[in-house]
């Protein structure tokens, strides 16, 4: 949540703002002795110093966050580019695989058609001296019945 918040703020506010805040904090701390000479700030001398330290540290932290976020965004871009390239390659591979599959199935179907035509041609020769017993058909069908299917 904290990281997300920092990243979100960093993405909205430009780097120079954080740098200015950090510098302002540093300069403020450096001149806090003079600043606290102002009468109404005089009782809060220590508080003013702490305030400038916090501003300086906060600004420095956000400067660092900005740098880290930039690196992170760059990594995301690179990762997305790698994924896009992989997806394109995957699609290309699919086209090749699909084409190979269709060609191979087409060959099988063509050969099947030729075989079926040959069986029709040879019907008289095949059936001439053979009569199938009904048990043979039952056994054959039993072997062809689907098993182990979900």
């Amino acid at each position, binding site marked *: 949540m904290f990281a997300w918040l920092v990243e979100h703020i960093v993405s909205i506010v430009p780097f120079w703002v954080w740098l200015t805040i950090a510098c302002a904090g540093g300069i403020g701390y450096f001149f806090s002795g003079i600043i606290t000479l102002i009468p109404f700030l005089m009782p809060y001398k220590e508080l003013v110093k702490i305030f400038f330290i916090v501003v300086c540290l906060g600004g420095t932290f956000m400067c660092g966050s900005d740098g880290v976020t930039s690196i992170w965004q760059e990594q*995301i871009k690179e990762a997305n580019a790698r994924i896009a390239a*992989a997806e394109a390659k995957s699609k290309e*591979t699919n086209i090749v695989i699909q084409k190979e*599959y269709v060609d191979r199935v087409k060959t*099988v*179907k063509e050969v099947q058609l030729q075989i079926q035509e040959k*069986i029709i041609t040879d*019907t008289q020769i095949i*059936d001439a001296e053979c009569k199938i017993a009904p048990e043979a058909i039952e056994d054959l069908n039993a072997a062809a019945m689907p098993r182990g299917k979900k």
Partner: protein
Amino acid sequence: MRIALLLPLLLVGCMTVPVIEKFPEVPAELLVACPNLKLVEPGTTKLSQVISVVAENYGQYQECQIKADTWIEWYNHQKVIFNNIK
């Protein structure tokens, strides 16, 4: 105590890069299940009819064999592509 309080603050920096990888698409032909083997008409006495059905079933098997081979080929290709992303 101070360290214990600081640790969660430091750990929030450990985030994974939010990149979504989509599961690769499969050619539509491979998603069709293999049909059951054809059965010989009960009462058939002609060998030619039996051979015809058996030959058809052989063809069916060969188509399914190609499909299984293609699935293996698809998987191996996609695995190589996926492993090369990282």
